[in-house]
């Protein structure tokens, strides 16, 4: 592991230089950028200015990086409430690009970029791909959705900036994706992990063995996934599967990325300053403790965001990374504080259900959690697709499987669920993000 790490770390892309800056220099740079961005937001964004004034604060009160904790948080609702352009710090004529998130509840959120912002975004995506061991000569199939979603264009500019050959596939049309993967000699693919799982499954149905193709890397992000899912994808496709992290509110993909060591994600913290806070109190937590990731954009012009509550739960890894990067690492994000649902007073994360299913079946089957209310009581049903590996011609064997899944869930979550075995391909497949929880309790 360490050996492979050292070898891969020697393949160095010049754009990655900021990943290796000595820490004191990095902190100096962060502080001067932080002071500038706080001034910029204060001058140009009404919401931020009024919140600072309410607290009797002035941008000049930021004298150290620790002072950042005195500033108010920004939450998703702030972006929605100021729809569409209320948080912009640049005149619209300087904005060269707008993206928007598909709002599942009400209005979407809109994010803006100046030309300089697009350049920064490209540079952090170049650093992402370089950290995943890719470079000139690679053929990258970009299966993130193009359009208002930041994933597609973010990865596209980064891959071009890297000097690789880009195939702008966008999401969906899986059979065609597989054809291109095969015929164009693709060496790396970017998509959500759940879409690649779907693609790998479909390839197997079509009799295409992904392991025999030149494909050697997957750059996966935009949703939480597990270590076992990584092993599954790596084995099924004969690739290295890397986890990358980002969010539109901050910039899009390119906030953090794994390196060859695949042990935590390096945050490109010269542009995005990370804090870990207690999700309940908002208080900063000591390094290494698990909490909610809070991010501040240090160099964004069109839409500076100060102390954004990501709702993603993680922690800093305090040991230095064998790859030699000095920028900090966070543990891969297994869950979101808002993915959590509460049933009969118990907090449950979908990742816990995944752990329980994996413990029984060895690989992760497609599943969905359905919450209902029957006679005033909350019920949790976990629907699990039957795979050829676990299917048997004997009823007893399937009933046993059902009982083992049920026992495993009860052990992990501490709650009795109902387990329903369903036919393959009956749980809706996501072309984008996986929908793991269906809550029908208010119906």
């Amino acid at each position, binding site marked *: 592991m360490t050996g492979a790490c050292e070898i891969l770390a020697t393949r160095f892309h010049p754009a990655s230089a900021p990943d290796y800056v000595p820490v004191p220099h990095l902190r100096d740079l962060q502080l001067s950028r932080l002071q500038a961005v706080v001034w910029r937001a204060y001058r140009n964004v009404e919401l931020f200015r009024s919140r600072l004034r309410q607290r009797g604060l002035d941008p000049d009160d930021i004298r150290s990086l620790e002072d950042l904790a005195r500033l108010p948080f920004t939450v998703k609702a702030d972006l929605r409430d100021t729809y569409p352009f209320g948080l912009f710090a640049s005149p619209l004529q300087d904005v060269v690009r707008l993206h928007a998130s598909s709002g599942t509840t009400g209005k979407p959120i809109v994010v803006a970029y100046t030309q300089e912002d697009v350049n920064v975004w490209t540079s952090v995506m170049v650093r992402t791909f370089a950290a995943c061991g890719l470079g000139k000569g690679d053929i990258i199939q970009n299966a993130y959705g193009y359009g208002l979603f930041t994933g597609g264009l973010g990865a596209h500019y980064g891959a071009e900036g890297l000097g690789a050959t880009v195939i702008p596939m966008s999401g969906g049309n899986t059979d065609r994706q597989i054809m291109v993967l095969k015929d164009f000699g693709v060496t790396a693919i970017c998509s959500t992990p759940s879409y690649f799982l779907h693609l790998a499954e479909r390839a197997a149905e079509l009799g295409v063995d992904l392991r025999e193709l030149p494909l050697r890397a997957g750059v996966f992000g935009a949703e939480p996934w597990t270590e076992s899912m990584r092993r599954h994808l790596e084995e099924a496709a004969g690739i290295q599967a890397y986890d990358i992290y980002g969010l539109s509110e901050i910039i899009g993909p390119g906030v953090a990325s794994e390196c060859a060591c695949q042990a935590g994600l390096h945050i490109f913290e010269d542009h995005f300053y990370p804090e870990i806070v207690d999700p309940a109190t908002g208080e900063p937590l000591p390094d290494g403790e698990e909490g909610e990731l809070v991010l501040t954009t240090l160099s964004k012009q069109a839409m500076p965001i100060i102390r954004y509550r990501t709702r993603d739960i993680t922690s800093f890894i305090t040991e230095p990374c064998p790859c030699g990067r000095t920028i900090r690492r966070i543990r891969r994000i297994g869950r979101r504080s808002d993915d959590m649902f509460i049933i009969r007073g118990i907090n449950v994360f979908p990742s816990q259900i995944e752990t329980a299913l994996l413990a029984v079946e060895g690989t992760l089957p497609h599943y969905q959690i359905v919450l209902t209310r029957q006679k005033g009581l909350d019920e949790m049903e976990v629907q699990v697709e039957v795979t050829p590996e676990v299917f048997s*011609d004997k*009823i007893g064997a399937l009933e046993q499987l059902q009982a083992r899944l049920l026992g495993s869930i009860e052990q992990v979550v501490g709650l009795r669920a109902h387990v*329903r075995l369903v036919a393959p391909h009956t749980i809706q497949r996501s072309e984008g993000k996986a929908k793991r929880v269906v809550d029908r309790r208010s119906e």
Partner: protein
Amino acid sequence: MKIHQLSLFLENRPGAAAEPVRLLAAQGVNIRTLMLADTSEFGILRLIVSDWRKADALLTAAGFVVNVTEVLAVEVADRPGGLAEVIEAFENTPINIEYMYAFTFGRQDKAVLIFRFDKPDEAIARLREAGLNLVESVEVYGGLAG
């Protein structure tokens, strides 16, 4: 000697069993016999067909989970005690009968039953020892003569 039986996972909902049966019919695969085992939530459709390899490929391609198991077709005398003779042959042996069902067609004074044993090879030896007749697979797939 051993017969290849296909088993399919079905959800317990209206029309679930019709889909695979229609698919096989459209592709000219003859269903020799079938048996549905079910619980309140799901079922297992067990099929013996004229061309199990083709059926397996068709059903798998259509997205069904298919399991291929080896079963035996045993001739049973069509009179009181006929079935008891077969079952008795396995008493006090380490061979278990997992399940069984009747074949759609019999011949003359014999019925044909499909048996799923946990140890099919040992079961064949035991059946021969007990003087019981196994129906050849060709006959089962192609239709019974006579």
